[in-house]
């Protein structure tokens, strides 16, 4: 199972790196989305893969009975997903606004803030 997950993560990371090498900012963003999901899988795998029950404690009990899954990586992944969602939604809106106001999504053509030196 670990091996399978590791291979999956590898493929996702490779794909995202390929996408992020593109000059099109939108494709770069898609790469970033993929990469952040790959990282979530990494955290999940780092918490060890066990076939445990959900980490819930029955009413009145002080400890769960039987084997339960590690809850911490799940909490970390959830937090990371939420934060990642917010950041990526912001970035998508930013890319869209940039496209509307600069008329391009090609990162090479974005030279407004750093204009090329005219007097050489």
């Amino acid at each position, binding site marked *: 199972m670990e091996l399978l997950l590791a291979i999956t993560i590898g493929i996702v990371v490779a794909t995202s790196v390929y996408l992020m090498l593109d000059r099109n900012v939108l494709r770069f963003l898609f790469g970033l989305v993929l990469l952040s999901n790959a990282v979530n899988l990494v955290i999940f795998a780092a918490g060890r893969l066990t076939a445990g029950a959900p980490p819930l404690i029955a009413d009145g009990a002080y400890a769960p009975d039987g084997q339960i899954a590690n809850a911490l990586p799940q909490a970390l992944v959830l937090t990371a997903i939420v934060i990642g969602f917010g950041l990526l939604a912001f970035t998508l809106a930013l890319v869209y606004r940039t496209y509307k106001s*600069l008329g391009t999504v090609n990162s090479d053509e974005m030279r407004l803030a750093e204009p090329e030196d005219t007097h050489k």
Partner: protein
Amino acid sequence: MSWLLVYPIIIPMMTAVASYLFRRSPAGRWISLAGTGALLLASGLLMANVLQQGVIAAQMSNWDAPFGITLVADYLSAVMVVITAITGFATVVYSLAEIPRRLEQLGFHALLQVLLVGVCGAFLTGDLFNLYVWFEVMLIASFGLLVLGGSREQLDGGIKYVTLNLISTIMFLTGIGLLYGITGTLNMADLHLAVREVENTGLLTTIAVMFMVAFGVKAAMFPLFFWLPASYHTPPVAVSAIFAGLLTKVGVYALIRAFTLIFDQDIGFTHTILLWLSVITMVTGVLGAAAMNDFRRILSFHIISQIGYMILGLALYTPLGLMGAVFYLVHHIIVKANLFFVAGVAKRIAGSTELSRIGGLYAHAPLLAFLFLIPAFSLAGFPPLSGFWAKFIVVKAALDLDMWVVAGLGLAVGLLTIFSMTKIWGAAFWPDHPDGIKPRLSDIPVGHRLALMLPIATLAAMTCVIGIFPEPFVQFAETAAGQLLNPSAYLETVLGVQP
């Protein structure tokens, strides 16, 4: 006692809420001002307590470390919180005159306060994942501030800032995941003990390098700094100033924290990388500055070059080196925010930050010229200003280790800093204005003039005071460095056990 650690986070958070709800009325900005005033007070109390007790810690919701979230303040954290509060207060005062109503109604003050929440949280947390969360809080607020108003330059710079910082974030998160995988803990004090029991040190070093890259992007270290000069000169000056003062320093702080408390098992490898990267950072930064022709862009490149000195102090990993790094951090936040403030006033009265299009500031605004010279000389390292002592300690630390090349380059970079400062002086202050404008401070209405000049004068006075009476500050930095190199007090306070 534990509440002292909470105030610097909760005060700006509540201020953000209140100033956002009142963003359409002038009350919003006064709430923001009062909030930063309260933050200043709270940070002062925190500092007083830390000075008495060394290290203080608080466990959130009564969950003991390493299971709950811990807030810790040692000397370094405390001084960073104090300096954050000072910069935040200065920025709010400055923004009263600089930020137009339109941006205030979009929620400028709330974003600024959220930024302060993130920065204070990052300085105070004792948990690695929590650090990630505070980084994100800071980041999302900085994204908002950077593109607030949405001019074309801002969007252009914003894209680069956002994308590169997101990559750093993802790198940081990967590092956290892997570190948790091999140690099973994320509390920084607990990690300090846990990494010593890891057998696979090769994997640990790999993770250390991931953290180095992640924090290196945040700190604008060579070769990861390209987002900084692409974006820092585009937003309103108040925003530039607080970014320049605080944001990269959070990255440096995280580097110092991680590479003293957690990753100190393979110093020969990691800190050597840091050493050479810091030297190249110094040199490229200052060369970039020398090539620029815009007030704020020159200053942006100087941030990079100064970051090099701080990381150099960390990389030397001697008591003197770390002491220099701490001293440099504090000095640089004050001076750099101040220079951006000056650039803002120059833009306001002379009409631009492009050096070829302004002039006459010395003849018509001698006070501004004087207040520019103080931080400019301090940045370059002239005695008797704070920058002299900061550079002196770092260079001395390098000399003590017989690193002549490093020390020499450090001094040469100082010389080049002077060169680019003279460039600003020679273009913006000395000659007449190309359009014949007479840029006078008295053209600004009195209220605005006060709000603009007070922060500048205060910060300039601070660099003078630190420079003329360095003794207590040096001693403070020395204790801070001692705590970093020997974290037994830190561990004991957080974990409650004798290590």
